[in-house]
């Protein structure tokens, strides 16, 4: 039932990532410098206003999910001036392994958004070639149908969750009539369901963590050395725009039973790839650079 299981949770958390959408984080830190004289609540208010401004600016400047671009075309220029040559080496390796990538908006939702986009895109492509409903679409509909009871079982309010659940289910129902282009427009529509279905992935991830609290607890230790699973979900998983760590990734892949490969590009010169759960053969592949996820396409895609 549970493809990741205890072992994969144990092995993967040792590489827990610094979760922060770089741009967002830097802008926030800069905004916090000159506020020494204000009361703490005024500072909070300012910070939140500024965070909202930053998110709004990012929304204007970056599409939720960009067009397909070549790996070196997209990344080489970005790292050309970087003194750490490991990045350039890593990009060459990725360029040989992958054909293209899509940039995902840096608003803290990049993992959930990239994961969901690529999964749905692959589903649409596979369904387009078949006259009848493909087994994966049947399966995921069942998973989502069954998720409602789980959400309520872990204590979510039905009146809060229904809309998200319905939107996700409706989107899956539309898959047979969608083309990849139509899906792209839909998932980039600021006024549409995109942000709602992305948030639903957070709720699914949190639900899986709560349902398996004993197993996840050791990896979500608080500063006091205690693991408060509910608090972790409330403060680290559910809030919109809150970055994602490996615990959330494991939980979401388990809940949907959709595996993911993550390629880590850093200054080492050797991108490392991790598969959740171990041993799976994911269609969804994401590029991770400290603080951010983008979508990767195999040379065969």
């Amino acid at each position, binding site marked *: 039932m549970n493809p990741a299981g205890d072992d994969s949770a144990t092995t993967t958390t040792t590489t827990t990532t610094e979760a922060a959408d770089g741009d967002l984080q830097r802008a926030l830190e800069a905004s916090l410098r000159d506020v020494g004289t204000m*009361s*703490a*609540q*005024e500072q*909070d*208010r300012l*910070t*939140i206003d500024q*965070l909202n401004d930053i998110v709004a600016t990012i929304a204007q400047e970056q599409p939720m999910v960009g067009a397909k671009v070549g790996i070196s075309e997209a990344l080489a220029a970005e790292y050309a001036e970087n003194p750490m040559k490991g990045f350039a080496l890593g990009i060459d390796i990725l360029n040989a392994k992958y054909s293209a990538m899509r940039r995902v908006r840096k608003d803290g939702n990049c993992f959930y958004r990239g994961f969901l986009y690529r999964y749905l895109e692959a589903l649409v492509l596979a369904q387009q070639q078949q006259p009848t409903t493909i087994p994966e679409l049947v399966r995921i509909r069942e998973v989502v149908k069954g998720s409602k009871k789980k959400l309520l079982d872990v204590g*979510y*309010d*039905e*009146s*809060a*969750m*229904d*809309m*998200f659940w*319905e*939107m996700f289910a409706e989107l899956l129902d539309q898959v047979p009539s969608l083309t990849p282009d139509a899906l792209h427009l839909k998932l980039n529509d600021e*006024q*549409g*369901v995109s*942000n*709602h279905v992305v*948030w639903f992935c957070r*709720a699914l991830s949190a639900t899986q963590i709560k349902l398996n609290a004993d197993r996840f607890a050791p990896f979500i230790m608080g500063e006091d050395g205690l693991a408060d699973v509910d608090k972790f979900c*409330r*403060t680290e998983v*559910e*809030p*919109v725009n809150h970055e994602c760590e490996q615990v959330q990734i494991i939980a979401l892949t388990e809940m949907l039973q959709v595996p993911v490969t993550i390629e880590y590009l850093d200054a080492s010169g050797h991108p490392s790839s991790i598969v959740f759960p171990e041993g799976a053969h994911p269609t969804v592949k994401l590029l991770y650079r400290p603080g951010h996820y983008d979508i990767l396409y195999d040379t065969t895609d």
Partner: protein
Amino acid sequence: MIGWAKRLRKELQEVRQLSVEDEPDIFLRVHEDSLLEWRAWIRGPHDTPYADGVFELEIKVTTEYPLSPPTVRFATPVFHPNVHGVTGEVCVDILKSEWTPAWTLLAACRAVRAVLEHPNADSPLNCDAGNLIRRGALEEFEDLARTAVAEHALREIPSSGATPSPGSDKPRLRGKHQGSCFYWHYLLALSPIFGVLIMQAVSG
């Protein structure tokens, strides 16, 4: 965004089904048929200086809801470290950085009521209230809070919500006369503290 109306209709449906027994201390309703504006009345929690009062909350929602939080302010003036003395703005984590779409308007009202019960004096919106608590002048703080309750709060939750509350039409503390009156009350209560400070300054 298309989600807001769907979601708020669902919440409305739920709060309409609530009986007084289900939710004896909170009454939430839509304001003048706009799903984007709501009113709530919350009963002050037991064993607090607010226990005898009922407080009206003004709740506003944008079309970004529930991905963005509602804004909540006290329409009834209240003396509390985390409620702004002039605007009625209330500082609650879940309405700010910790908002998640899993919360509902009713949950937000419960959180605001919890703030009345657990004032956080360390990061006050109302510095006077915060300072009294921080200095350990709890009696003075509670006296002032009770005075404000006696002066501004309702005694009972409106039964249908159709009756406008006496407090809601009054000008708030930004009204010049009322404002000075209100501050006068707690300046009086603060005077012993000022006295002590002056004495210390003189003797030092």
